[in-house]
């Protein structure tokens, strides 16, 4: 008995000591300044450890996550600078004919792809046909309805023929979907090779891709063709970019804080202020184009009624939801057609609706939705005011975005809407199950673009002879399409912007789509790494100019 007792005591002490040690250890934390000393000097070479969120299946493709990656490897014909001016990249000069139907690009001399073949007019023309044929699905959408053919006039001059005038044509080519690849590589390599390591003339080449972990970008030592808005000529300063895929936001931020990542993408709103106070450099880019917006199904269901659409919008205090969740990092966006950083943005369209519960209730009463059930939802002829609202979580809508949508659901309830908010997995979202006219009452999503021409994609009519499944409101209106087409073709910039604004107001007046928040591309960078910047077409990170200081 004595023996047993002694034993128990010993064991108890052991356990207590273990618990105490655990507690003591967890109390420790990392500290110290992360700032480089004043007068720290640039060091040569080095590897940038960059933590990105999503891993695409291929480097090049029509998804923004692919654009961010392919931008490092491929050069475009032209680039967009901070002032939204088109500047030379592979093309030194470009010109549209007077009728805007013929575009001529003159290439830089002596540029080669990393497989040794020349960047010449023939290769450029080949790339245009390749995109239009679906080689890049998003590029194909932009070219659709406008692009006819491309031909090499001589070694360095390429001519592109359009079906309709399109003054913004060159501007659209600044998006990484239009990255130029080696013709030889496209013709002779396997699909698998061109997927995993496309051959361009860019600042980096694709090294090893450890799926699920990282992709190595190796410096192209012979790089001669940075865009005119790059901060230096010639090859990149760093030898390598270790582009890691860190899907979990906590891990990403922890990796930055632990010094394992020099830069990370998509900082959660809740961490933004803290990261800044700790001395990390922060970069924020509001993507132009379609913002995170909701569009109503105008072809089927309750929202075919304009007044019900308006009632729904009036029931929402969108600004307060976004400010609460976004903590001042995510900007509120009232405009449903284009975001605030898009040229031709209409403030009037953005301010068309503000929170007015009384008005929402009046509109609903007037529409006959007068009764309420025990849960407070409105009922008419025994039918509840249900709103089917699926969203694609994790890909199109991130965690902050999902919280904002929950706020929408809560607020609409006060007016009597029963919003059925359904997070759908990527496969269901992509399968088209929730995309047809029966798939939703409200759809949510963004589409980045460098100009308000995105409205042509989102609002062109969906007709049997010219289908347009990107019209997510199912709103076929020749008048709206006409305004947008005239805007696209307007030669004078002011006239163009006025027409684009008119289209935005047309959309707002009818409550076809309203904005929620602007889609962001954010970076946090360790101050030992200088001159990382975000390109202006889509907000992707640029590492060509980046260098370490010590």
């Amino acid at each position, binding site marked *: 008995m004595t023996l*047993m*007792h002694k034993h*128990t005591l010993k*064991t*108890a002490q*052991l*356990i207590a000591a273990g618990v105490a040690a655990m507690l003591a*250890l*967890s109390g420790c*934390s*990392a500290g110290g300044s992360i700032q480089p000393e004043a007068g720290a000097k640039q060091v040569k070479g080095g590897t940038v450890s960059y933590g990105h969120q999503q*891993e695409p*299946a*291929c480097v090049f*493709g*029509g*998804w*923004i*996550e*692919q654009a961010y990656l392919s931008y490092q490897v491929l050069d475009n014909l032209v680039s967009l600078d901070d002032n939204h001016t088109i500047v030379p990249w592979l093309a030194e000069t470009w010109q549209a004919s007077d009728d805007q139907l013929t575009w001529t690009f003159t290439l830089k001399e002596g540029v080669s792809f990393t497989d040794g073949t020349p960047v010449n007019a023939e290769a450029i023309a080949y790339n245009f046909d390749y995109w239009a044929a*679906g080689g890049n*699905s*998003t590029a194909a959408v932009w070219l659709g309805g406008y692009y006819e053919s491309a031909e090499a006039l001589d070694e360095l001059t390429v001519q592109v023929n359009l079906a309709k005038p399109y003054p913004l044509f060159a501007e659209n080519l600044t998006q990484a979907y239009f990255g130029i690849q080696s013709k030889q590589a496209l013709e002779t390599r*396997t*699909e*698998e090779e061109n*997927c*995993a390591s496309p051959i361009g003339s860019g600042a980096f080449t694709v090294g090893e891709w450890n*799926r*699920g*972990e*990282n992709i190595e970008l190796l410096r192209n030592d012979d790089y001669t063709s940075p865009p005119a808005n790059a901060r230096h000529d010639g090859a990149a300063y760093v030898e390598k970019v270790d582009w*890691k895929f860190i*899907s*979990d936001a*906590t*891990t990403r931020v*922890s*990796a930055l*804080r*632990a010094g*394992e990542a020099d830069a990370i993408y998509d900082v959660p709103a809740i961490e933004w202020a803290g990261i800044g106070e700790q001395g990390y450099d922060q970069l924020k880019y509001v993507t132009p184009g379609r913002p995170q917006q909701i569009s109503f199904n105008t072809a089927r269901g309750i929202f075919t009624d304009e007044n019900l659409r308006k009632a729904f919008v009036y029931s929402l205090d969108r600004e307060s939801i976004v400010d609460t969740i976004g903590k001042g990092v995510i900007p509120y966006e009232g405009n449903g057609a284009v975001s605030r950083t898009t040229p031709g943005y209409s403030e009037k369209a953005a301010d068309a609706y503000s929170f007015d519960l009384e008005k929402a209730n009046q509109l609903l009463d007037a529409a006959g939705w007068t009764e309420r059930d025990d849960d407070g939802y409105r009922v008419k002829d025994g039918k509840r005011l249900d709103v089917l609202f699926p969203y*694609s979580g994790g*890909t*199109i809508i991130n965690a902050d975005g999902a919280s904002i949508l929950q706020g929408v659901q809560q607020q609409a309830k006060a007016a009597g809407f029963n919003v059925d908010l359904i997070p759908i*997995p*990527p*496969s*269901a*979202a*992509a*399968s*088209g*199950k*929730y*995309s*047809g006219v029966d798939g939703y009452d409200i759809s949510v999503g963004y589409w980045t673009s460098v100009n308000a021409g995105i409205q042509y994609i989102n609002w062109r009519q969906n007709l049997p002879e010219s*289908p347009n*499944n990107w019209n*997510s409101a199912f709103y076929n209106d020749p008048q709206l399409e006409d305004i947008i087409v005239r805007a696209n073709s307007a030669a004078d910039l002011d006239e163009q912007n006025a027409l684009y604004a008119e289209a935005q107001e047309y959309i707002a007046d009818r409550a076809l789509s309203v904005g929620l928040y602007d889609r962001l591309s954010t970076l946090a960078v360790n101050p030992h790494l200088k001159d990382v910047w975000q390109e202006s077409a889509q907000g992707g990170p640029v590492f060509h100019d980046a260098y370490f200081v010590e």
Partner: protein
Amino acid sequence: MTRTLSSRPADAATAARRPILSPRVRRIVEKLVAAAVVLWGAATAAFLAQIALPGDRATTILNVRSGQTQLRTPEELASINAEYGLQNPILVQYLDYVGGLLRGDLGVSYQQHRPVWGIISEQVGATLTLTAVTLVLAWVLMIFWVTLTAGRGTKIRALGSGVDTVTAGLPPYWLGILLLLVFALGLGWFPVIGGTGVDGIVLPALTLAIPLAGFMGQATRTEFERSLTAPFIITARMRGMSDLNIRLRHVLRHAILPAVTLSGWAIGATISGAVIVESLFTRPGIGSVLITAVDSQDLPVVTGVVVLVAATYVVANLLVDLAYTVIDPRMRNS
């Protein structure tokens, strides 16, 4: 001669009673047939589940490639349907698929454009390593904790089984975040981004091993405490054996059979279920491959991984059967 003759009838009688195959061979053949049936069933179930998913597969492939979610026109879908034979009747697609499996051809990924074998073989090493380390850690933790606390005074016993219950129920994501913040970010003992390095495996494996240890501990503890009071233990004590020795050499052997069974299950579960840990610690592995493939309806990859996991279950259960006979010799003849 006479001797030989006289012995013959006896031999013949034995031969007549003996089946064509020896019991041992027969058992192996039976196991192999059962394994093949399990694999075929898993492959078929995975195929049918993919076919039954809502929406159109060609649309999914195209939308995933472009990060979009809308419907597609027949013209857009034509090339994809033709490339992967998606316009064929389901039966034809199924036979193509099973035929491929029989030839050892798992097909080509819709999204990565490369053979599924390549994708799996590239990722399986990391997963198997994680599984093995998890299992070892779980066993070490479990044996340590059970031996330390089982059959002691009331308070320690309560603490022991209390900790088992709590750890068994810990959500891996929460536990992983906690370990990451304390041991990687706070103390800097391990890297935040695990990767495939040796020091990178500790936290991911612990995240999986702690709940597993609790789970196995619950199963082991009851048996352990029952054995402690068994007559042969009292005999051993009377022989003057130390308490620790008795616990480790005699009691444990009796008590661990349930945990061995659970380990067989855990091997399979870790391979397919490690995805949370893989994503948290940025480890490559079959789990994340499976999730990505399911998200993009990349059927060849999904079915390939399912067949692999099924094969692992089969092998793990064979190993468990084998382990039984080693641990408890009485089972050899049963």
